[in-house]
């Protein structure tokens, strides 16, 4: 296993599609395109202030979310981090619902009460992004606990980053999942930087996966820019989880193309490094090339997928922009399940 570094120049960037249904592969590509388009559109809206409160884009990390969720159904659960538009959309959340939440509108998935770090849709099994580093894994842990208790054959995936891998809670969660053999897929999206701190400067030990192996669960490293590779690792993990064999730890080596937050002008990495990843390890380009090579997608086919993504995001923005704002009089509603009387609220 290796720490997160730029792959060696000339290392094969091809994607192995053997055993993968081309229709599935095209679907994954379509999902990645939707996520890319969503964030590429929302980013400038956050910079301009139309979307309040800023945002964390996962641009470049799409293959991790799409690969992991490719093995999950709506009864399976995912919960993720502060950077999780990709997981939310990959898990099946409607772009309208997500975009309206970013806009702070009443028809957003949290009624405008959450924002981009608090997306959820329980009907598709997305139990929430999370503003607290490492905490999304805890929600997935609890979902897996419920699934294991019911022995219903479902599983949960919890996402966090390399930053989260340096929190104590993440390892409490991993230990409990391993000790209780819970049907949990632990997903570390190692994008190389915790905000501006490079992994190498902050993390002792060889790798996150290596650290995880000490908890006695299978721990694998996977190329997070290869959706098929992520899919295969996730499929193994889901099989184990559903069979009652306990959790699996997947460290996906990935890279975010944009800053920690939209508008960031960081000096912590070089333009050359970013461009290398964009040019040589872009998960969308790689999948497109692989499908074209295998003859399962032509230029027109790709253009069609891209146009669909563009249309869906355009529709989401139009919907969100036109959606009504929440009524300020509702600000203290639904804090509890009953009408809570607190003096001074009126």
């Amino acid at each position, binding site marked *: 296993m290796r720490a997160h570094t730029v792959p060696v120049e000339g290392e094969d960037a091809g994607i192995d599609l053997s055993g993968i249904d081309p229709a599935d592969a095209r679907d994954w590509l379509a999902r990645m395109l939707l996520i890319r388009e969503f964030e590429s559109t929302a980013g400038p809206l956050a910079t301009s202030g139309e979307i309040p409160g800023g945002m964390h884009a996962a641009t470049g990390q799409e293959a991790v979310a799409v690969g992991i969720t490719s093995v999950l159904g709506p009864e399976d659960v995912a919960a993720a981090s502060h950077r999780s538009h990709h997981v939310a959309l990959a898990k099946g959340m409607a772009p309208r619902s997500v975009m309206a939440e970013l806009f702070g509108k009443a028809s957003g998935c949290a009624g405008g009460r959450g924002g981009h770090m608090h997306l959820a849709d329980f009907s598709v099994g997305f139990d929430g992004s999370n503003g607290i580093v490492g905490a999304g894994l805890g929600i997935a842990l609890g979902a897996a606990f419920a*699934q294991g208790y019911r022995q219903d054959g479902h599983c*949960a995936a919890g996402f966090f980053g390399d930053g989260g891998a340096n929190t104590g809670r993440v390892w409490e969660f991993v230990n409990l999942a391993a000790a209780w053999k819970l049907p949990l897929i632990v997903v570390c999206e190692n994008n190389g930087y915790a905000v501006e701190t490079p992994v190498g400067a902050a993390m002792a030990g060889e790798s996150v996966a290596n650290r995880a192996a000490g908890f006695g669960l299978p721990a694998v490293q996977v190329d997070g820019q290869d959706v098929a590779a992520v899919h295969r690792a996730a499929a193994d993990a889901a099989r184990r989880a559903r069979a009652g064999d306990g959790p699996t730890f997947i460290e996906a080596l990935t890279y975010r193309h944009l800053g920690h937050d939209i508008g960031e002008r960081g000096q912590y990495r070089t333009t050359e490094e970013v461009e290398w990843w964009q040019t040589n390890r872009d998960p969308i380009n790689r999948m497109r090339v692989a499908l074209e090579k295998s003859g399962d997608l032509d230029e027109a086919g790709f253009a069609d997928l891209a146009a669909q993504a563009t249309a869906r995001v355009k529709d989401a923005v139009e919907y969100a922009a036109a959606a009504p704002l929440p009524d300020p009089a509702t600000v203290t509603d639904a804090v509890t399940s009953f009408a809570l009387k607190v003096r001074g609220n009126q």
Partner: protein
Amino acid sequence: MTTPASKRTTLSRAYRDGLAEEMARDDSIVVLGTDLYERGGHWAQVTNLGPQFGRDRVRNAPISEAAMVAAGVGAAMNGLRPVVDLNFLDFAFGAMDEIVNQAAKVRYWWGRPVPLVVRGTTGFAGGGAQHNNPIESWFGHVPGLLMAYPSTPYDAKGLIKSAMRGEDPVIFAMHKMQTGTRGEAGGPDDLVPFGQAVIRRPGRDVTVVSYGVMAPKALAAADRLAADGIEAEVIDLRTLMPLDLDLVEESVRRTRTLVVAAEDYRHGGVGAEIAAAMQESLFRELDAPVLRIGAPFAPVPHSPVLLEALTPGAEDVERLAREVVKTATGGRPQ
């Protein structure tokens, strides 16, 4: 109030019996925490529940408060009704994010029920500063959490039963010195609702608001005051969120005086909220300033003489009640 099934028991056993009745009724209830199955918890609060319900439902957990509570939150969002038993409520510090930043906010964002109980024993006793923190005001300050603090076996049983049938995350505090408090407990259908304080002793001269361990202390003070003809009305809040200020206000309208008795630090505690609310509502009806009893502002010390110096007692309630009555009556004897 009580059904034929009511019986004399202790606060800890009443809690356990209430939980056992709910677990028998609803198999989505699971209990997790350290030392629960064999030991029955550090306060005998779940004695024999392990053998009765099995290891799937009464789970010994590693000493990982964040993991226990996170498992509880996520499971509560997915159809279970977990009770995370921290033994000592102080250990919630290791899971504050899971309680405050996760459990408390899920409904506000997404309307999703989080029927989670986090139980802990709390309050001043021997053992030093890290096992005896009064932290009820912290939790009472977090929108989305309910906070129970029963002082009698009847309320411990009735409140845990209500909590297990509710949809909200509940912090369930039980005072160490009341583990063995004896009294009647209700039957299987005797629920105590959240947000309803109770008048433990009616009186015309001064209202004393209390909760937890201060409720029996306030009653003891009321006995001594009565010997001198001062009739104190003692209110037991039973839950700190919701906080039943309406009953307090109704009482103070009659007595025109108020003493708030909490073991919590006097500075910035729940008593301050009660005092402020009453002066806002009843400034012209009050015959004396509202006085508060609470601990002085220091960590909980080890030496018994120091601990005694920190712990509010019945004599403090008595002293302040006499003081407000004296002010109210212009110094005339009652």
